[in-house]
């Protein structure tokens, strides 16, 4: 298929794990892909990339959804002088039908490299590599087929969620519906960057957090419950008898608050001290399940290191019922975005913003009450900004 020699890359076709090189070659009837292959082989030889900063490219009326890319070897690899990425908003939970996939493939075959990422780290369908001239045609065909672009730049990024109620017994709220709903509600914020920096939303149905929302989203919505863990004692016994699980050591002994008692025949949980970590339920899915009074905790401010250091999201609302149309959450989002957009610095994520102005002030500004659940402990330093009226 390909004409150039790619000794380094060919090496990566070997081995049990599916090979991205084979994937690239599968698409190498596209001249773009042949040049990509050549340029990549050269990178492997020289140990350096050959891409340049993308200037702003995109589709009319949108400020995001396309990542512009140009190479620095236009003479040698002319077909990838322009090689932009198109981010297509995935359906909730990354569910597809064969028909849907084929539709996407056809569009991408006609207008791009035929290479994809299923999916990008934020969750989008990533169409990897096309020319500026193809962007509008791709966009109109996508929308005609019922798809739209995802986020990029300082906008709301494409929300994503775990399979949740579609495929998991532990979902404490409808992650799929919530994600679809906020995505639709905030189309303008998603397509027209108006924030100080990116804002990501991720939704996990329980504390296992299968979309890593606590580490990777500016607003993390994680399912939980307020009442008692449901216990089927007969099934607990079954696990004990199975001999596969040491309930005392591996379940009770690993409960973070040691709130489980196991006397060999029945399991007691002190639910007031249970922190809903999911471990015991994970270990005995047939015997235990989350309580009935379900909802979610809302956390805010996770991000990677740039600039002030990586952050996990921190608790903003310890518990909220997740009922469509999620007005309460949308009010909260509105209040946060307004404050952050007005006072946030350029390229300051909301987690960094909150630390700069102080969580106490942030709460006051967005009209949320301070509760001890928001902190691991009260302040230890005596530098208190008392404000005394007079």
């Amino acid at each position: 298929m390909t004409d150039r020699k790619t000794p380094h890359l060919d090496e990566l076709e070997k081995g049990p794990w599916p090979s991205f090189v084979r994937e690239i070659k599968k698409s190498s009837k596209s001249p773009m892909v042949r040049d990509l292959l050549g340029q990549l082989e050269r990178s492997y030889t020289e140990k350096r990339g050959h891409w340049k900063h993308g200037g702003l490219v995109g589709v009319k009326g949108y400020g995001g959804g396309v990542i512009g890319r140009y190479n620095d070897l236009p003479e040698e690899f002319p077909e990838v002088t322009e090689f932009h990425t198109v981010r297509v908003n995935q359906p909730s939970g990354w569910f597809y039908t064969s028909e849907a996939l084929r539709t996407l493939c056809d569009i991408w075959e006609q207008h791009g490299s035929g290479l994809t990422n299923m999916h990008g780290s934020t969750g989008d369908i990533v169409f990897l590599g096309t020319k500026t001239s193809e962007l509008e045609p791709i966009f109109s065909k996508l929308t005609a087929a019922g798809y739209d672009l995802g986020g990029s730049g300082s906008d709301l990024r494409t929300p994503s969620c775990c399979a949740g109620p579609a495929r998991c017994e532990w979902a404490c709220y409808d992650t799929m519906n919530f994600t679809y709903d906020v995505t639709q509600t905030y189309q303008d914020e998603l397509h027209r960057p108006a924030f100080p920096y990116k804002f990501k939303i991720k939704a996990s149905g329980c504390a296992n957090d299968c979309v890593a929302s606590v580490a990777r989203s500016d607003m993390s919505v994680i399912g939980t419950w307020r009442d008692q863990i449901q216990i089927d004692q007969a099934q607990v016994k079954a696990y004990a008898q199975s001999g596969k699980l040491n309930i005392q050591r591996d379940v009770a002994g690993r409960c973070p608050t040691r709130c489980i008692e196991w006397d060999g025949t029945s399991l007691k949980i002190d639910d007031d001290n249970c922190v809903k970590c999911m471990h015991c339920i994970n270990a005995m899915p047939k015997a235990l399940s989350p309580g009935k009074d379900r909802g979610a905790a809302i956390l805010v401010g996770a991000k990677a290191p740039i600039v002030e250091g990586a952050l996990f999201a921190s608790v903003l609302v310890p518990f909220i019922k997740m009922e469509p149309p999620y007005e309460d959450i949308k009010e909260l989002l509105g209040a946060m975005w307004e404050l952050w957009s007005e006072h946030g610095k350029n390229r300051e994520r909301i987690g960094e913003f909150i630390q700069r102005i102080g969580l106490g002030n942030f709460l006051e500004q967005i009209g949320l009450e301070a509760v001890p659940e928001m902190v691991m402990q009260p302040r230890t330093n005596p530098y208190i900004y008392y404000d005394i009226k007079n």
Partner: protein
Amino acid sequence: MAEPTKRKTDIGPPHYEKFLPPVIKQNYGKWKYHEMPRPGVLMHVAESGAKLWSVRAATPRLMSIETLRLFSKLADEFCGGYLRFTSRNNVEFLLDNEKNVEPLIGRLKQEGYPVGGTGAGVTNIVHTQGWVHCHSAASDASGVVKSLMDELFPHFERPDLPAKVRVAFACCLNMCGAVHASDIAVLAVHRKPPKIDHSRLVKQCEIPSTVAACPTGAVRPATVDGKQSIQVIEEQCMFCGNCFTVCPSMTMADPENDGISIWVGGKVSNARHEPMFSKLAIPYLPNNPPRWPEVTSAVKQLVDVYAANARPFERMGEWIERIGWPKFFKLTGLEFTKYHIDDFRHAGESFRRSTHLRQSQG
């Protein structure tokens, strides 16, 4: 300027319901429990008694449309055309008929997309663009991931570890792979200050925002042969590349010195222990394409030592916390250096501020 024919915009993604198989539609939110009948297969049982078999297969994430068409064909053959992808870029075929499970697994293997990745093992590696598409990359992503997964493959096919081992890769400190909370994080790093092209800088970059981009204040405004430009105080530079992100004329790429660092003990889930960041294990290994042997063997060794010493349900970070970091460095034979000691903003919070020391001489 206004358009003649109304252009379709802001329609968002299609509604997910269109894509759910009947067994899911009927039992949506009514799942009772699940089992793992074999590695790579999940059987979810609904209150109604209905069953769903999810067959999880490996993908390289970077895929040709030819492969997506292949998956579609297999989905049509074995499960009415229903499939999904996971948050770690595996593909899952959604079957309501147990009889099709084994045949599908056979076909997937034959096509080169082996089944696995469930339970207490190693699953797909969350990763990024690397030399395939990003300007920032200090290494390739796909190549390192391919080499690592070839090495770790047995743990993908068989969940034979104490707990899940989540591996992630990112090709620069922007960490698009979100490696900051993984059991094993592979992070490509630059190790030299940016090279400034003053002539281009004047046109390409906004000086205030470039200065503001530097976490350590190493970037300063300066006049270079008459023109307003920028200077970098090299002793203050820790090579994060954030200046380059906002200013293309400050390039970081450096074939000699770019390479890879390895981090351990992070986790995301709230199960048992609260989420933990990954901590530095190996400050630097060379970029050695196409197979990165130094990196793959270091990672393999970390997994082996963990597998040999951790207790059931203990994630890498939980295990290390139990035995203590001194013991971790002893068991792995890794060297502890000044690089391992934090010296950024909150460094002091990581110092040992007690005498809780194991003191074991052995």
